[in-house]
């Protein structure tokens, strides 16, 4: 089982550029999440989804967008990259009566 797969693992962006962080899971989980982890901090929720076609904002959604067209995929879009978005991004999924499964993270630097 691949579990939760995130791509890319590392990326450097210039200010103002856009990109999409990919996340896919093969466990048929309804719940999916995007978190960011800033240095010396815990993870903070950006967006979440409770099923295909349903998404909602978390604690820190500004500057991001998401979509959930399929159960498997939950991409995170940065439209105008800013230095404040330099962080490590984690995608996670959760099935019924299960804990969250995390991907390996994407380290994003914006210069």
């Amino acid at each position, binding site marked *: 089982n691949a579990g939760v797969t995130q791509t890319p693992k590392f990326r450097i962006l210039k200010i103002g550029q856009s990109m999409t962080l990919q996340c896919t899971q093969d466990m048929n989980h309804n719940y999916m999440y995007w978190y960011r982890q800033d240095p010396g*901090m*815990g*993870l*903070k929720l950006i967006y979440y989804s409770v099923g295909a076609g349903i998404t*909602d904002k978390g604690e820190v959604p500004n500057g991001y967008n998401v979509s959930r067209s399929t159960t498997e995929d939950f991409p995170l879009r940065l439209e105008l990259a800013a230095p404040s978005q330099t962080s*490590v991004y984690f995608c996670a999924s959760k099935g019924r009566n299960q804990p969250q499964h*995390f991907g390996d993270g994407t380290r994003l630097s914006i210069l």
Partner: protein
Amino acid sequence: AQTVTQSQPEMSVQEAETVTLSCTYDTSESDYYLFWYKQPPSRQMILVIRQEAYKQQNATENRFSVNFQKAAKSFSLKISDSQLGDAAMYFCAYRSPTGIKDSGYALNFGKGTSLLVTP
């Protein structure tokens, strides 16, 4: 929103010794879930142990155990017989029991405790 506080930014333990990491949380709910996650330098988030608030018995997973004090809103992690591989960041996390109306079972994390294990 529920807050999770880890008051120890760093802790150190000698190999084979026991260490306790502290976590407190704030909530008005009576039923919830608490977790400890380990994050080694590889950056993976690894579930160590979880506790359901309605269960009075403290959870145990091999060398890892918790001291759950519901009235005090305290959830500490004890690592026994520490090993070099235990060195990592440890995060305490809270999860509401409700799904749809409360961030879809998302986790609230503390800031973490960095554990150093010395030979």
